[in-house]
Every structure is written in C-alpha cells, then in structure tokens.
C-alpha cells in the first residue's frame, strides 16, 4: 500500500458522481502521445474508407468540409483516469461517411498519419456515436490534439479516438490496434472500467 505524502494534492481535480468509475475531472486538456506530432498539409490531407472487398472512398479536405457537419458536446474519458466534461467539437458524423457504403464487415481498424492504429466494432462507429472532428471549442483542432482531424468516439476511452485519422478499414475479422496489442482492453468501455486485457 503506497504511503501518502503529507500535503500533496496534485492539480485541481474532483470526483463527480456522473463520472465513470476510477476517473477524476480535470480542467486542462492533457496531451498524451505515442510519437511525434505529425504535421499534415491540408492540400495533401486525405481520409480513406476501405471496405472488406477493397472498395475505397477517399475525401480530401474540401470534400470533407463540404459534408453536412454537426456541433456536438461530449464528455471525454482517458484511460489514464482524467475526464473532461462538456467539450465542444464540430465534425462529420461517421453515419454520413458510411451512408451508401455496402459492407458486411463487423469491425473497423482506424489508422492515422504517423502510424497509430486502433480497432473497434463497426457498430460503435454508427448511430450517432462517432465523428471525424476538426474543430474544438470553436477553433481549428490543434495538431497536439489530433488536428487537422481526428476520430471522436466518446463512449469509449479516448485512445480509441484516433488523432490525425487518415484511414478507416472495414474488416470481417477484428485486428488489434497499437495499444490493444500491448495490454489495452480490446473494447474499452469506461463505464465498465475496461482499461486493460481481462478487465
């Protein structure tokens, strides 16, 4: 059992009955990364959606911006225990991107500039649960936080919300992404505290 250091409080945080188990509230927005921040030129930015048969749909930045967008307010829960409530984003719903796509796939592997990957069931990207977000709190999404655009899937731990997203690959078999293959839980539901394998 760790000893308590007298007088150590740490940065402002509180627990809130509305938070998932084990989380505490923060007011800042910590930056956590598995690699250098990619710098992506908007003139070359692309998002690819690839089905299990290899059919590919690609959006460049103007094409993404032309799609109907949504302003959303969501709570973020990071596996490192901080939560940030009521964050405001603007993005394109995955329902919009998947509209008209024919697929029998049950899973998605999401990829990013810089090589990061994460996996989740396709069902978790549908029905108003996920967005390609490019604006945070009324401004352009900062590269440190995943800009120009990131995936946002707030009902799962934040590592599933891949920063610098550039590909969504639909698959019939599930494949573990970057953190899922080295201990992080395959699904990651914060309300069931699914942080690591076997949780």
């Amino acid at each position, binding site marked *: 059992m760790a000893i308590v250091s007298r007088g150590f409080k740490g940065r402002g945080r509180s627990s809130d009955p509305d938070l998932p188990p084990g989380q505490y509230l923060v007011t800042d927005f910590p930056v956590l990364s*598995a690699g*250098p921040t990619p710098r992506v030129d908007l003139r070359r930015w692309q998002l690819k959606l690839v089905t299990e048969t290899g059919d590919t749909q690609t959006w460049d930045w103007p094409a993404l911006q032309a799609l109907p967008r949504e302003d959303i307010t969501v709570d973020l829960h990071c596996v490192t225990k901080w939560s940030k409530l009521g964050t405001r984003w603007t993005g394109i719903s995955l329902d919009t991107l998947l509209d008209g796509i024919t697929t029998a796939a049950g899973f998605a592997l999401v990829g990013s500039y810089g090589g990061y990957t994460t996996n989740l069931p396709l069902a978790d990207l549908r029905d108003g649960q996920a967005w390609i977000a490019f604006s945070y709190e009324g401004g352009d999404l900062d590269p440190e936080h995943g800009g120009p655009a990131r995936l946002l899937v707030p009902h799962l731990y934040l590592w599933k919300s891949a920063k610098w997203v550039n590909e969504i690959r639909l698959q019939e078999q599930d494949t573990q992404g970057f953190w899922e293959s080295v201990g992080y839980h395959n699904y990651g539901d914060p309300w069931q505290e699914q942080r690591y394998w076997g949780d």
Partner: protein
Amino acid sequence: MTQSRLDGNALAGNLSEIFRVDITAAFGQCTHCKNGGPVAETWVFSSAAGMVARCPVCAEVVLRLVRDTGRAWLDLSGLDCLQIAIPDDPPPA
C-alpha cells in the same frame, strides 16, 4: 514538438521492475532500418499509461511498455535483439 520527446533513460525505472540488469545501456538493433545503438538514445514518448521508444534514425517503434497495477506488457518486437552487458563474478583469486 521536440519538447514532448524524452530519451531511453526515461525507461530505466519501469524496465528495472522487469530486468535484473540495466537495459538502457544495452545495444539494440532496429528491426526496421537495421541501425543500432544504446536503448538510452532511443526517442521515448511517454503516454503515462504506456511508453513508446522509437528508433532515433528511422522513427519506427522499437519498444512498447504498458504498466497496470500488478502487471506489465512489454513488446520488444521492434528490436532484432539486445546486446546486454552482464556483470560477471570476479575471477577466483
């Protein structure tokens, strides 16, 4: 930004829970580009719940370490091997 990057010295504490000898001074060969050097000179990005070490030449991942209470996961698949100095017993008098 470069300020967010540390080096392999930052792995020493967590690796000390797993290995009996210091691994940061060990020499590793990157699986991707075949360049080699001490683990201490890799680029380390710390995510609080996981550490990632990248080859300082090609930036590919050479090591990943995740720590939960009571267990850790270590992936060394980005290294072909490690050359580790092990203190030998002194020769008999």
